[in-house]
Each structure stands twice: as C-alpha cells, then as structure tokens.
C-alpha cells in the first residue's frame, strides 16, 4: 500500500501448501487495518460453519501509516470467534506490523489446515511450511526461543505462537506475539490450533524509498515530539495502565471477588505504585513507539534451602492485575505475576481466564460445583490452587475444565450460576464497573471489548446521566475507532492522532486528496461491514442477556437498573439499523 495504488494481500492455503498474491486496488480506500481485514473476512468467511472449521479464514492487516510514524504499531487479526461464535477481532503490537511492512504485505489471509503441526516462515521472498511436530504441547516462551534459533533476521523478525491451550482448543486461547504482546481476546489461539498452526515467523528486508522527504520528516518530527514531550502519553509510560488500580478502586469500580464487590481491601498492595516500587525491572516498546508502555515485572522465588532463587520476568498491565488479582482476591504482586506467567505460558487470554476462574470459585463456594468437578478447591486468594487450575484448564482433560474452556457463559449454562457468570455477549468482562457506559459499551461493541468504544471513559467523564447522550457518544466513538483501527494506530495514542494530525501524516506519504469527510465516510462504511458480518453470523443485539450481578453490585455511578440497560441497548440497536439503511 505504501506509495502504491493497491493493497497487497498474501493468501496462504495450509491444506495444499500453496500461496498466491493479489493486488487489490479496490481495498485501498479502506486505509488498511480493520477496514481491509473486514472486507477480506467478509469475502472468505463461512458463516454457517463452526469457528474451528478448517475452511475458516484468519486475516491479518496493517495500515497505510504502519511502522513509519510513531505509535502506529498494531496489527489487526479478524476471524470467526470460537468463544462468541461471532465476530472475532483482536489487536497486537510488538514487531509484527513492522515485519509485515518490511516483507511487503499489507494483509495476510490464511485458510485450510495442515495434517501435522506446522509453523509458517514468511519473508520478503518466500513462504515456507515448516515441520513443527516436535513443538506439540510446548509452551509459548520455549517456542519463541526454538524458532529464534532457526529463523534469521534478529531485530527485524516477529514470532507469533500459541501455547498448549490453543492446541487443546481452549476457546479463549491467545496468540503470543514477540513474548510481551498478544492477540489476546476471542480465541485466535484456538483457531491457530484448529489449523495445526503452531507459529508464524515474519521477517523482511525490502527497500522503501521515501517519495517526499521534506514533508515526511516534518510530519515525523511533529508526531515524535507530540508523542514524547506532551502529557498525552505520559500515563502509559510512567506507571503504565496499572495506574488505574487505585483510582478505580477508590471510585468503587474495581471488579473484585467475581464482582461481588467493586472495591478491594488490598488495592493499595496491588496498585501500579506497588508494582513499580517492588517489581518493575524495565520498560520496553513496540517497534516504532518511543513511549514504551510495556512494563516488565520480576519476582523471585526460593526453590531450595541455601539461598537458591529463581527469578521470572513477565509483562503486567491493569487488565491482568484486575482479572488475575482483585477479581480472584489475590492480594500481592508476586502471586499476580506467578498467575500471569502461568497463563502466558499456557497461551490463554488473561482476562477470560481470570473471569472464568472467578465464576468457578464462587460456584464452588456456593456448592454449585464440588471437588468432583474442580479437582482442587478453588478459594479466593489462593494463588497456588489457581496455578493448578490453570494447568487443568490448559490440559482440557476433564469434562468440567473442558466446559470452563468454552468460556464462562457456556460453563454456567451447563453447571448453573449464570447470574454471576461475568460475560457480556459471551466475552468475559473487562476491569471496569464504572456504570452504564462500560456495561453497555461492551454489550454493543462489535467485539464486546472495553476498547470498542471506551465506554468506561464516558462514565468517568460525565456528571449527569442522559440516555440519549450516552448512546450517541458510544455510537460515535465506536464508528470513529473503526477509522483509527484501519490505520492501526495504538489506541493509547488516540489523542495524539486527531483528525488534523492524521491528514497531515497521510498527505506526507502521498494521500493528498484524502479529506476529513472521507475519513468519516470510510469509518461508517467499515462499521457497516462489521455489522453485516455480525448479522451473517446470527448475532442479534437485542437478544443479549446480561448477568444479574451487574445490577446487584453497586457501580461507580450507583446501582444499575436492568430495564435501563436493555433500553440503552435497544436505542443503540436502532442507530445501527438506521446506519445500515444509508
């Protein structure tokens, strides 16, 4: 796409081990990212077949500005989600976007299934289908090391891999990207596993001459300065997203003990400050991001007498501290880091894993589940037992853990306790019990993520609750983020990349004719594509059923009413339908 009038798409068929390349002029107007990926998903999806059917596609895409401007670091993955059985959409940073750009591909579509476990080696000049049979059951960290030893291109190479959970079909298995980043949500790891695809290595070395050096350097300098010297990004660099723990707790919005309450007595002990003082050892960045929000924490454990210690380093973020911390009643950073490491190594989404274990713990507490199902007692605050449960979940050998591996909604449908199974439209909740914004935002969001429209921020920023204003704000943000995600801008930098800045950057690389109005129309077109995809997969917004717990535990903005929640969803649905008619 860069300086070309087409989007270059690499198609890989695992079944017949063939590739082909298409130059799609018709897709360029969608800017890349989620715009291009939505279209490619629409073309290749088999709506009536199971999410793990071998003919289902995996689509990756980068954007028009990828890796040549600061903080434009994301790659989008789209697929049919095995967790929700509808739209799968997930984002990862790391080095992947740069390596796709360097290899010369704007998008990659993978279909089919290998007979034996394989990994793909993609570079500027070839695609190889590599034998990965020996990697069966190997955890994510070791897989990275093994492939690094085999593949050239240190420093300009990205390695995506799944852990045993993806191979074993856990429906919220993740794909680890370059150790610290992930396609975490909605089960891309299980889709990899269903194709016998253990890993992908991408590297590239192509030349990309700059066409207008003066304009490009001016734009780059402006953006670099904005990203590094203003206050817009300091939150993400300093304490990182874990800075949210204390204010959300103080406001009564930190989901705790499976959302039996929204504040945690040990919040200070697991706050961003506590992690920074006691555990933070370094910060690193995705390629092309001068901010460096990846916070790596370390813990040490004594494994024998005589001062024998092991030390382990893992990345941490607010969402992980919520899901594997307060939500499970874990009151210290060391245990949270142990749980994060276990989930990472298994290759599962940390948020879904924590929320599933939270439900199971409460169900065990209430006698809905017994030791016959859980094998080990699940007790809030007991990290050692949770570590054992994570292993059982990853292994998928018992009926109960197989159900738990389908997501909390399906597990609760089987065993009971649906009123406290904290999923929204099948996707486990995020760490915000801020009010109608977070709840409805996730419900109406195309992928049911807190990042679809940032609903929690409307709860935090609005003084007076107004139904129509909230619905309008969520809708506008959902649509706007379709454009930001087409350009694969890291959403942490959404305030750096206002419309004027985006147009300046685009013009410097040849998009002279792009206008503000076009950005708006493209956003709407992309959103409509996603809505069509969801309809083709049988999704109906008005059919959403929210667990009672959301309405029983007081939120930051008071107790929520289910009638109001469903009314808001219906209002949003009306706006969707009106848009689809345009």
């Amino acid at each position, binding site marked *: 796409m860069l300086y070309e009038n087409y989007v270059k798409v690499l198609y890989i068929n695992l079944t017949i081990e063939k590739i082909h390349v298409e130059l799609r002029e018709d897709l360029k107007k969608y800017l890349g990212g989620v715009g291009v990926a939505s279209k490619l998903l629409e073309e290749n999806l088999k709506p009536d077949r199971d999410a793990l059917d071998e003919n289902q596609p995996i689509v990756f895409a980068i954007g028009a500005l990828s890796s040549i401007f600061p903080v434009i670091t994301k790659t989008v993955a789209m697929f049919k989600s095995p967790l929700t059985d509808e739209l799968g959409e997930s984002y990862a940073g*790391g080095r992947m976007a740069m390596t796709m750009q360097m290899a010369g591909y704007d998008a990659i579509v993978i279909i089919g299934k290998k007979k034996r476990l394989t990994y793909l080696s993609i570079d500027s000049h070839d695609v190889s289908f590599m034998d990965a049979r020996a990697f069966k059951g190997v955890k994510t960290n070791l897989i990275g*090391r093994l492939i690094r030893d085999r593949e050239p291109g*240190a*420093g300009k190479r990205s390695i995506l891999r799944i852990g045993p959970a993806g191979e074993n079909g856990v429906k919220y298995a993740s794909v680890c990207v370059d150790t610290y980043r992930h396609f975490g949500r909605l089960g891309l790891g299980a889709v990899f596993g269903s194709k016998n695809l253990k890993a992908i290595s991408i590297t590239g070395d*192509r030349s990309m001459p*700059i066409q207008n*050096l003066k304009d490009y350097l001016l734009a780059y300098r402006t953006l670099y300065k904005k990203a590094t010297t203003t206050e817009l990004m300091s939150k993400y660099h300093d304490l990182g997203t874990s800075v949210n723990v204390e204010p959300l707790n103080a406001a009564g919005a930190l989901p705790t003990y499976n959302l039996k309450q929204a504040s945690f007595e040990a919040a200070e002990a697991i706050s961003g400050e506590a992690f920074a003082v006691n555990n933070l050892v370094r910060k690193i960045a995705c390629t092309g991001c*001068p901010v460096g929000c990846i916070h790596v924490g370390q813990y040490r454990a004594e494994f024998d007498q005589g001062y024998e210690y092991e030390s382990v380093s893992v990345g941490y973020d607010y969402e992980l501290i919520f899901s594997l911390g307060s939500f499970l009643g874990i009151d210290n950073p060391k245990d949270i880091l142990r749980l994060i490491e276990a989930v990472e190594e298994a290759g599962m989404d940390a948020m879904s894993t924590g929320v599933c274990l939270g439900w199971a713990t409460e169900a065990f507490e209430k006698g809905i589940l017994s030791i016959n199902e859980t094998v080990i007692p699940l007790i809030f605050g007991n990290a050692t037992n949770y570590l054992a449960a994570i292993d059982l979940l990853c292994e998928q050998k018992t009926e109960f853990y197989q159900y738990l591996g389908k997501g909390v909604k399906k597990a609760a449908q089987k065993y009971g306790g649906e009123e406290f199974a904290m999923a929204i439209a099948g996707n486990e909740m995020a760490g915000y019990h801020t009010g109608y914004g977070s709840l409805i935002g996730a419900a109406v969001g195309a992928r049911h993520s807190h990042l679809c429209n940032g609903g929690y921020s409307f709860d935090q920023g609005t003084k007076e609750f107004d139904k129509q204003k909230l619905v309008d704000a969520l809708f506008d943000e959902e649509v706007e983020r379709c454009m930001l995600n087409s350009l694969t801008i890291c959403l942490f930098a959404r305030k750096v990349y206002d419309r004027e800045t985006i147009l300046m950057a685009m013009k410097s690389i040849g998009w002279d004719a792009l206008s503000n109005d076009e950005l708006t129309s493209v956003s709407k077109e992309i959103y409509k594509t996603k809505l069509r995809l969801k309809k083709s997969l049988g999704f109906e917004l008005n059919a959403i059923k929210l667990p009672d717990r959301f309405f029983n535990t007081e939120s930051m903005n008071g107790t929520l009413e289910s009638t109001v929640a469903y009314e808001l969803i219906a209002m949003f649905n009306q706006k969707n339908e009106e848009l689809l008619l345009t």
Partner: protein
Amino acid sequence: MGKILKTDGMNICIGCFSCMHICAAVNLKNHSITKSAIKIRTSGGIEGRFFSTVCLGCVEEIACAEACPSAALEPRDGGGVNFIHDKCIGCRKCTKACIANAIFFDEDTKNPIICKHCGVCVQFCPHECLRME
C-alpha cells in the same frame, strides 16, 4: 574537532527503533530500517537486553579506510570516516575489515552503509541511550 556517536546508555534502551527509522530516513531517504547505519538488536529475543551496533569512530588506525582500494573512505575529523560515494566500487572489503561489524551493505545500491556521526539518532532517542561526544 568533530563529535562521534557514543552508545554507552544502552542499558536503558526500550527497543523503539526510532534511531534506526530516523537514520534511514535522513541519510538514505528510506523507510526501511535495513538502511540504517545504527542497528539495535536483542540477544535472546525481546526478553534479552538491547544492544547497538554502530561505527566506533576509530582514530588514526582505521581498518575500513585502509581496506578500501578506491579511497572512498577518508578519515573523518574526530573519528570514523567520510564516505565518498562516487569513489566507491562496491567491493565490500570495508565491511569485512570492520572488526565491530558496524559497516553494513546496501544490496540495492551496492554501497556500504556507514555511520557519519551526524547525531540525528540522538535527537530521536526518547531516553538517553545515545549521545555525541
């Protein structure tokens, strides 16, 4: 006396690669980090420490200049070399002569890529990993 680039702050590198992006852009008018005269890498994946490979700014005894058969590399005031593009015959002898492996080769132009100690990378390092001395 010209200044030379020092990379003795690499312990605090976050691996953003901004130095490589700007070096390739300013000096070779290219978006590709393969065109950068400074290379940032890790040992053992991104979990490992970042280190840099770049011209060490040799003074007086300059192996790459000595190895150049066409006098395309002239000693630079302050250390390192100035690259005279029109004299280069693309023999790659300089890349082999550099014991720091800090001279790269541009397969598109058949020219070596050598740090000119211009300091633009320092301006775009968000930490203080790089400095001019």
